[in-house]
C-alpha cells in the first residue's frame, strides 16, 4: 500500500513534509542514520542524479556530506547534526548555502508503522521564497526553451502537412 506524502508551508519560514512508512520506528530510524541504507533511498531514480559519496557521522556535532553527480557537474550537500535522539528525533543544518534551512525529522510509531514529520526552518522568509523561486525559475527557463522548440516544430510540420 502506498501512503500519501504531504507538503505544507506552515509559516513564512517553515515547510513541513509528512509521510507514514510501513515499518517500525527502529528500522525507519536505522534507514535514516546508516549511510549504507540511507544512500539506497535518498536519491530516487526520477531525480536524475547519482550519489557519488555519502558520509554521515550521526551524533551531536557530527558532520555529514553528500556528493552528487548531475550530468557533468558535481554538487555537494553538507552540514552538522545538532540533535540525535534514537528512534525519535534528528536535527541537522544545511550549510551548502547561507540560506539553508535547519531540518528536524521526528519519528512516531503507531500500529507497527512510522509517521515521519520533516520540518525545515529557513533563516528568513526570503530564503524560503528564494528556494522556491529558484525552482520555479529553472522551470520557467525550460518553458522558454520549449517555446522556441515548438516554434521550430510548428514551422517544419507546416511544410509537411497541409
Amino acid at each position, binding site marked *: 500500500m502506498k501512503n500519501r506524502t504531504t507538503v505544507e508551508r506552515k509559516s513564512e519560514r517553515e515547510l513541513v513534509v509528512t509521510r507514514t512508512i510501513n515499518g517500525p520506528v527502529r528500522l525507519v530510524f536505522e534507514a535514516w542514520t546508516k549511510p549504507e*541504507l540511507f544512500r539506497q533511498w*535518498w536519491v530516487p531514480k526520477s531525480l*536524475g542524479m547519482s550519489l557519488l559519496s555519502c558520509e554521515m557521522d550521526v551524533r551531536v556535532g557530527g558532520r555529514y556530506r553528500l556528493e552528487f553527480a*548531475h550530468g557533468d557537474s558535481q554538487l555537494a550537500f553538507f552540514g552538522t547534526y545538532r540533535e540525535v535522539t534514537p528512534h525519535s528525533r534528528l536535527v541537522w543544518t544545511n550549510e551548502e548555502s547561507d540560506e539553508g534551512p535547519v531540518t528536524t525529522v521526528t519519528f512516531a510509531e503507531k500500529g507497527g508503522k512510522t509517521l515521519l514529520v520533516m520540518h525545515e526552518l529557513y533563516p528568513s522568509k526570503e530564503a524560503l521564497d528564494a528556494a522556491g523561486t*529558484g525552482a520555479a525559475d529553472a522551470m520557467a527557463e525550460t518553458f522558454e526553451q520549449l517555446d522556441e522548440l515548438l516554434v521550430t516544430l510548428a514551422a517544419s510540420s507546416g511544410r509537411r502537412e497541409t
Partner: protein
Amino acid sequence: MVQYAQARLDHAFAALSDATRRGVLERLGRSDASITDLAEKFHMTLTGMKKHVGVLEQAGLVTTEKTGRVRTCTLGPRRLEQETAWLERYRQLWDARFDELDKVVNELKRKEKTDGRNDKE
C-alpha cells in the same frame, strides 16, 4: 532545491528526445486533446500513448485532467499559483524518496524475519 529543479530540466530534455513526444507537444500547442485523440493522430495504441503522455507529465511539460472517462491533455504545468506549483514539485521529490525508503524498510523487515529464525542479534 534549485539543484533539484535543474535535475528536472534533464527530465524535460529526456522527454523531448523522442519524435512522437515532440509531435504530441506540437499538437497540444494548437489545442488541448484527449489521449484517445492523440493515439489516433499518431497511429498508436492507447497504452502506448498513455506512456508517452506520462513521460511528458512527469517532466512537467504536460498536464492531464480526467473528466468522466476522458483524460484531456494540456500543454504546460498545472495552472496553479506559482508557489503551489513548486510545492507540488517538492512534494513529488519527497514522495519518490519516501517510496524508496518504504522499500528499504520492507527489506529490513524481511531480513529481520529470516535472521530471527536462525539467531537473535
